[in-house]
């Protein structure tokens, strides 16, 4: 039987796009959100949309994800999410990094993306903001996009309301109710709500919610902080990321602000949205090392969000095992703005037709059945891939 009434938990970019797609397919759709749309990580990120990934599976879905973003304005009722081009610059400071990424070039070529490994001189030439800083050994440069996260979330929220999606704000889902091996309703702070199919798009809270239906997903929340400076004239067109000595990133927004962040390799797995002083000083110190010309900028605000990490840093999209009518749409491992919309669209098609798109094949929840629930692999970026054998 084709589900008629779809209940979605979470009004982030994942839940809202799923809602719009299901509505377009003729379903009755209810979205339950305990806060407000974008109050989760969809309102705390910097909107990088890139095709270049470290595994072929992720690269393929990221290509589809970028294409989906390029035509998403139609779904958003003609609203423009301020999508604009950038260059994604993964800047390398270790020879081991260059070797590891050089080995991925054939995969990037085969998938048709323009990611290429460049030497130090080209890197400094193409990413001039790095001049005067620590000399990189090279970089992987690829064309990418930036989206304005608030514009995207608002576009999706307003379009969902226009199209008759029932978006209920301030309603917290407390758990799923099962009968006869299938989920039949959600228990919420506003009472019980029944449906034919249920989508868990609660991001870092998806794990706890899935648990109420007896489903175990081995994901872990990790705080990610960011800071933003005052606006300046355009000075850079690249979205810079590096992983040595630890992960850091910065880019310029459309409004001209520089947004930046570094991760703390010792950050415990936890829900924590506090801003820390150590983050502010570390970020400034790392910028001093990598892009010292930015140090005259004034920081205006810092904030924190959460990454929901899966053991293989790849998402969880599809029917959970062991219970019917309940679908996961989460586990973005820091890439939900990129991956959630296309994943939501493919998942909705799967829910309605039963046919699974090959792009989603690697991301079934079932791959973690029986996998140890181990939080230990977050500290090293490349290690996260190596430990699952996903990247060479």
């Amino acid at each position: 039987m084709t589900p008629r009434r779809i209940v979605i938990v979470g009004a982030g970019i994942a839940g809202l796009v799923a809602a719009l797609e299901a509505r377009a397919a003729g379903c009755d759709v209810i979205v339950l959100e305990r806060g407000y749309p974008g109050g989760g990580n969809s309102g705390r990120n910097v909107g990088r949309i890139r095709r270049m990934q470290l595994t072929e599976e992720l690269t393929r879905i990221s290509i589809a994800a970028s294409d989906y973003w390029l035509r998403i304005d139609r779904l958003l009722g003609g609203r423009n999410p301020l999508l604009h081009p950038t260059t994604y610059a993964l800047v390398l400071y270790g020879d081991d990094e260059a070797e590891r990424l050089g080995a991925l070039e054939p995969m990037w070529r085969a998938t048709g993306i323009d990611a290429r490994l460049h030497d130090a001189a080209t890197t400094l030439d193409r990413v001039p903001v790095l001049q005067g800083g620590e000399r990189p050994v090279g970089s992987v440069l690829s064309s990418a996009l930036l989206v304005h996260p608030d514009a995207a979330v608002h576009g999706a929220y307003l379009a969902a309301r226009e199209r008759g999606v029932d978006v209920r704000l301030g309603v917290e889902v407390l758990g799923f109710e099962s009968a006869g091996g299938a989920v039949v309703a959600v228990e919420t702070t506003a009472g019980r709500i029944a449906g034919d199919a249920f989508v868990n798009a609660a991001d870092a809270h998806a794990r706890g919610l899935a648990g109420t239906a007896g489903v175990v997903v081995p994901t872990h929340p990790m705080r990610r902080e960011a800071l933003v400076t005052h606006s300046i004239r355009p000075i850079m067109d690249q979205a810079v990321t590096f992983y040595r000595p630890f992960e850091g990133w910065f880019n310029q927004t459309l409004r001209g602000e520089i947004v930046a962040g570094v991760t703390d390799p010792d950050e415990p797995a936890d829900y924590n949205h506090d801003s820390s002083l150590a983050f502010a000083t570390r970020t400034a110190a790392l910028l001093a090392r990598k892009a010292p010309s930015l140090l005259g900028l004034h920081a205006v605000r810092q904030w924190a969000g959460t990454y929901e990490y899966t053991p293989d840093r790849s998402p969880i999209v599809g029917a959970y095992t062991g219970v019917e009518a309940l679908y996961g749409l989460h586990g973005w491992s820091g890439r939900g703005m990129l991956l959630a919309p296309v994943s939501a669209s493919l998942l909705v098609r799967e829910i309605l037709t039963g046919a699974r798109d090959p792009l989603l094949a690697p991301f079934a929840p079932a791959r973690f059945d029986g996998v140890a629930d181990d939080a230990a692999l977050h500290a090293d970026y490349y290690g996260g891939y190596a430990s699952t054998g996903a990247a060479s």
Partner: protein
Amino acid sequence: MRAPLDSPAVTARALADGRPATGRSFRLHRPRSGVCGNGTCGQCGTDPATGDALCCTPAGAAPVRRRDPLRALGLPAERQLPWFWERRLLRPRALRGRYLRVLRGLSAAPGLPPAPAGGPPQRRVVEVETLHVGDPARADPGALVVDAAAGATAFGVYADRTVAVTASGELLEVRCERLVLATGAHLRLPPVVGNDLPGVLHLDALLRYSGQGADLGALRVAVIAPPERHAAVTAALGDRCRLVHVGARIPDRIDGRGRVRRIAVGAEAVACDAVALGLDQPAIELALLAGAHGVLGDGPLPVVVADAVPDWVELRGRAAARERLPGCTAQRDAFACPCEDVRLRDLEAAVASGLRDVELIKRRTGAMTGPCQGKVCQGAVLTALRDLGVEPRPMTPRPFARVTRLADLAVAHDA
């Protein structure tokens, strides 16, 4: 914030010269002037050589750009909603990237300030019984005093009662048992048309400019303040400038082109060059970061006050004041948030489009997201939203309570 000025700031000199506009607004390119006089409001523009606010830069040390050729583009934008780009300007899909590039290039943002010379700041952990931030005259004996006039700035309160302070080449992490905040007040912007005109400023700023020795003798000043402050204002400013009006009633409008020319108070019109507003929004950012709850107070011109202040934190002086401010009829065309050029009517349109949550409206319009981070505008924005039936929940407090140069944060780390 840099060290204190013992000579007139760029903004003080500009006001004295009768050409108060030194900055321009981000979106509409409207001329703006030094409203706060202490680097918090972000209206006066920045010194390209240092990135510091012009109100913290001595006159003569930085050029003042008087002309803004892009104001011509701001004019048609005045009729658009803040999210005008969403469906109009940016539709031609193929051109989207380039359009945005052009738009970005047209913003009134300053250039990249040069990175300051000198080594990284020293990080020092200090443990004290009492940390006092603000007016040293109110400090208890024995307290460690963070005084802006001595070049020290507290920019955040973090976990474990740690207050972060930048002071002459050092980054202090102060662990304290008690935090006393005598941080004074910001301007509570009244919702009248013309409230963003150059020459409209906080009374504190005018007093500061006068204290810096700016020659205000020819300046015709109208002062609007609660009656109990009138005597003090007249005593402080009476012989420093031409006080053409001292009253408690908020003007019905503030007129002028490019700068203030006159105010209308009831039937009376008063010609003036500056409007000094003694309407205080207590400076409670650090208390909120320490865990107090912000709530929109009441009265005709409500301000955001600190509620449920933790027992180790104390607000003193004007930061603790609960003055009753004179009210006025809110005008749709007045600015609620000058940083992002958001008018009351824009907030109205956001609510009319179905948004009912302060956070959504904030992100939709940009209100409270500019350089002042809500310090000047939060009272005006939340009051307007309350009047539109939206629960006036103050925004999540986050550092930086004062804008902080990255160089001043870039302490040497081990890793």
